[in-house]
């Protein structure tokens, strides 16, 4: 579904050039959930943004559903294949667009007909009733906003969802609801996920395989059983697993 090879991403120009991602390679099979974990500044979100065409300065090769993409231009077909959900539902929805406006705009851009029925269906899919259709973001809770953001991503009927910390701005109880929703949607629609998170337990819950990143490099790709057993090939991975298990008094 997704193949990334020798991906380099940089910002700025020499002498101030920052290499955010350095020769990252991984593949994600159809139907799989792949996690990218690491600390802030490790380049995990940057990889997603490069795939989605939000960053022009990259080199290497990215193939989505067998088609190579270039630069930061993506055609309409790309967005019918891959969609992105952002971290902060408070920032990623336009404050003066109602849920209806958000979803119908996306549907129209994708050239879909029968918008009225589709909106009802989308809202149902993400567990919001029709009553939410004409609300504005400030009338929704954080979890409900994230559901709208997920509905917007699903509007194009994509096969690949790029999830950038989808629950880190939410309470744990709401996080559980959203993670369950994502699992259900994956089964119903046969979706493939690439999920960025700093929370190893969330990645452990959702993903089949994951890549551990540090300083822009992928240190290792491991499967989730190895993560559960706390087995990392690298010291850094083991350190990360140990510190995410909680606080041990020194």
């Amino acid at each position, binding site marked *: 579904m997704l193949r990334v090879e020798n991906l380099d991403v940089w910002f700025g120009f020499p002498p101030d050039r920052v290499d955010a991602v350095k020769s990252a390679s991984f593949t994600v099979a159809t139907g799989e959930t792949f996690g990218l974990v690491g600390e802030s500044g490790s380049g995990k979100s940057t990889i997603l943004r490069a795939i989605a065409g939000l960053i022009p300065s990259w080199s290497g090769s990215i193939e989505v559903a067998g088609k190579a993409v270039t630069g930061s231009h993506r055609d309409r077909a790309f967005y019918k294949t891959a969609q992105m959900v952002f971290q902060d539902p408070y920032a990623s929805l336009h404050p003066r667009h109602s849920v209806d406006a958000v979803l119908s705009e996306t549907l129209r851009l994708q050239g879909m007909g029968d918008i009225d029925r589709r909106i009802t269906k989308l809202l149902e899919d993400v567990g919001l009733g029709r009553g939410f259709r004409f609300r504005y973001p400030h009338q929704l809770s954080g979890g409900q906003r994230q559901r709208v953001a997920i509905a917007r991503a699903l509007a194009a009927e994509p096969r690949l969802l790029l999830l950038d910390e989808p629950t880190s701005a939410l309470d744990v109880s709401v996080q559980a609801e959203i993670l369950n929703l994502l699992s259900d949607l994956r089964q119903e629609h046969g979706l493939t996920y690439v999920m960025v998170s700093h929370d190893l337990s969330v990645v*452990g*819950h959702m993903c089949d395989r994951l890549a551990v990143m540090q300083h822009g490099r992928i240190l290792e790709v491991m499967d989730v059983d190895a993560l559960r057993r706390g087995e990392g090939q690298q010291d850094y991975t083991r350190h990360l697993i140990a510190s995410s298990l909680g606080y041990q008094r020194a």
Partner: protein
Amino acid sequence: MTPLLSVRDLRVTFPTRQGIFEAVRGISFDLGRERLGVVGESGSGKSMTGRAILGLVRPPGRVTAEHMRLGDQSILNLPERRMRKIRGSRISMVMQDPKFSLNPVMTIGDQIIEAYRLHAGGGKTAGRQKALEMLQAVQIRDPERVLKSYPHEVSGGMGQRIMIAMMLAPDPEILIADEPTSALDVSVRTEVLNIMDRLVRDRGMGLIFISHDLNLVAQFCDRVLIMYAGRIVETLAAKDLHNARHPYTQGLLNSLPRLDAPVDRLPVLQRQESWRDAELETYFPGGL
């Protein structure tokens, strides 16, 4: 022994167009020389409790209580001038995000020295000496360089350690930490917690640790208050957290994904209307 801080029936209310909104609805607790965790979801009133203790609730918000005492002095609705004497020197607060709580146009050294001299007096040289000591105490390498840098030149974890240094410079009796580690990476988090833990132990301070992270609080604190909709629904010794009795606490614990216990679906918290107002079973291990 008189507790460091004693709060009885604390209420914080805000007038709104729909009537009066109660953010905190009558909570009572005592703080000794211990680490007290306050846990709850967003909107449960945990941060508002911290702000009310420091007198930081802005009008039209109103704070009422049966009493709120620091040692034997009442600190309920003190005039701003007297509150300023307490804030910082006797009770300090560390906020969530160092990016927003440090002054971006002042060097870090000047900020710590200012905080220290305001409360302890003394000359600039003494202040500078103290600032260096504090930065060393929070394990910052090369404190001379950090003194001269601006907040944007340091990382998030370092910024938070600097905040802690600044708050601890005047030797307060109580430190209120409002989500001090939520903005930090896990590996930095452990470091910051270790520093706080040591300082609290060495100086015999009382710590109020406000957080949404149940497991972290259980591992870090001595005692935990669980808040729901502006009330304390349960008080527990931290080591007993996993035997929590209130369905809300249990629900919160269960909804966390765990590395060591994989499940297919996460149990979702079923909120009950009755939790808001039901008569609470008083269950206070180790006093209030």
